[in-house]
């Protein structure tokens, strides 16, 4: 079977498996959602009449009276069509429209800052291990070690305190100044960038150390490879040896690490969004958890799994282009 077909099948399996877990886990808990809502009402001292009838009607409306496998199949069909149901806390908004509203913010923030951390960290890490790079770069190693040890959200709080609270040069939170109406005008875009600097910086800085140290490690190993000696013997220019022979080969494990790290990047970003009140998917998830919005939680969780699986798929499909040995 061709490589990319195998990868695609893997992707579909992962997504279905994640959706299935999403279905099973809430149903493992005792009771059902309808009676727990009524339970809550009764606890507040309200009386509920004809309780059994209500439960039966709502169970039927939500399809809870059907056998489990039928529920499962209709759930799966709906989920895979991105019909994730209604959000309880944002009613009558659907889960998918809440997600779609939050998505551009998260993608903008995450994609840019993760890419920057990866690119910058990898380049700096490569230079750290390069004998002909400036010596002062060596001084960065302890800094990178420190950065890679600090969690995203802690760094976020620190940055917020220094730049938002003490210096007051950057806004404390939000994605744009609250009074403005989102548009594609230049002032609004500048406003968005200004709001994005701190959350973006905390993700970039926290990731930088990880990527730099990883790249440095691989580069050190590659220094001893015969093909680097031969490249130098060939009289190639330093820049060519560095990018074409050393970095090009050291990049391969980095790409693998990127695929693995994407999951933790997504979850780390959740907390950064909460700290900065950034209206992305993480913030959505946080609010959904606070208001026990089950459908929204399920939707966001499923969506996060989907994103990570998709990112891994993309990395998997790019990998053979980077390493010809991988296609078998």
């Amino acid at each position, binding site marked *: 079977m061709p490589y990319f077909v195998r990868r695609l099948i893997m992707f579909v399996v992962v997504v279905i498996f994640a959706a299935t877990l999403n279905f099973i886990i809430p149903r493992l808990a005792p009771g059902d959602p309808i009676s727990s809502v009524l339970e809550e009402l009764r606890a507040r001292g309200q009386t509920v009449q004809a309780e059994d009838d209500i439960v039966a009607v709502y169970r039927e409306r939500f399809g809870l009276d059907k056998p489990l496998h039928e529920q499962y199949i209709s759930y799966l069909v709906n989920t895979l069509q991105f019909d994730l149901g209604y959000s309880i806390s944002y009613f009558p908004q659907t889960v998918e429209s809440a997600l779609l509203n939050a998505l551009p913010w998260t993608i903008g923030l995450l994609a840019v800052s993760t890419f920057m951390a990866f690119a910058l960290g990898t380049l700096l890490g490569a230079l750290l291990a390069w*004998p002909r790079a400036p010596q002062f770069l060596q001084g960065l190693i302890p800094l990178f070690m420190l950065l890679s040890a600090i969690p995203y959200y802690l760094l976020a709080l620190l940055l917020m305190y220094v730049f938002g609270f003490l210096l007051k040069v950057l806004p404390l939170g939000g994605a744009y100044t609250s009074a403005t109406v989102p548009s594609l005008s230049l002032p609004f875009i500048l406003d968005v960038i200004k709001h994005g600097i701190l959350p973006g910086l905390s993700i970039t800085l926290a990731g930088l150390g990880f990527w730099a140290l990883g790249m440095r490690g691989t580069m050190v190993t590659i220094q001893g*490879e*015969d*093909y680097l*000696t*031969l*490249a*130098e*013997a*060939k*009289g*190639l*220019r330093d820049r*060519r040896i560095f990018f*074409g*022979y050393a970095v*090009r*080969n050291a990049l*391969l494990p980095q790409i693998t690490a990127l695929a693995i790290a994407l999951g933790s990047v997504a979850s780390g970003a959740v907390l950064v969004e909460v700290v900065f009140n950034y209206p992305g998917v993480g913030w959505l998830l946080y609010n959904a958890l606070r208001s026990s919005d089950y459908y929204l939680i399920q939707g966001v969780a499923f969506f996060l799994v989907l994103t990570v699986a998709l990112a891994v798929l993309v990395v998997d499909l790019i990998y053979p282009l*980077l*390493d*010809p*040995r991988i296609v078998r």
Partner: protein
Amino acid sequence: MTQDVSLQVNNLRVHYHTQDQAVKAVDDVTFSLYAGERLGIVGESGSGKSTLALALMRLHKPPAKIEGGEVILGETDILKVNREQMRQVRWSEISFIPQGSMNSLNPVMKIKHQMSDAIKAHQQGWTQQKISDRISDLLGRVGLSNSIADMYPHELSGGMKQRVCIALAIVLEPRAIIADEPTSALDVVVQRVVIQTLNDIQQQLNAAMIIIGHDMGLMAQSVDRLAVMYAGKMVDVSPVSSFFNDPLHPYSQLLISSLPSPDEKRELTGIPGMQPSLLDLPSGCAFHPRCPIAVEKCRQQIPPLRQIEESRRTACHLVEEKLR
């Protein structure tokens, strides 16, 4: 064989600097390499032959450091030129064939790009057509089909890779080629093919070649002169026929008597003892603890590499005295 000197090495010293002392991996080595000649350098592991090979192209890495001497290629002492000049000398004047190991080619680059890289680094004016013509010509000369150019190293066998390395070494027709154990890690049949290819190519170009190795049998068939290294020093230099018929240095004698021969049935003798550690060399001649004929003088004075005959030089007090 012409007697134009392609490469002249004078008193070359390469030391590895450890924490508290310098290890003399190449100690006062002097030799000439003539145009069109094949010089073999043999020695045990750790005798400094690979360090010498790398130092000749200034490819040695710290803690190795060239402490002194001259490496004159054509007219220039390459130990005196700057980095950029050295870069230009590499490959266009002196090229390198690595050990027949699996890792000398960049695993993520097609063969043709690894070859064109070397051309582009030295020849600006070449058209794409000229480069690809050159590559297919070279691959043909080492007995590989043109389709190899579009392959990656992992798609080739060990012997094919080594022939690619040979083709690569001659893209710019250098005046000198250094082959560092070009056939190790290859099986015996492939070894022969590779050595044959190497010899053919060398004769076509009339390039000077240094072959480094420890396979005396292979050396006997493929080089014109043989130099023996022991503990960082060159101790014996001789044309290959007289080296095998009438070895001068006691170490060379023992090396040859340790080789099996189909002509005479005799007990094979090894060389007693081990090569000394470069960190703790014996006084005088470094070989004296293992030498069957060593005398008091050998323990005290280091024998210099002296001219013994027209084309033979040996570093041994006793040989020198006997012939005087």
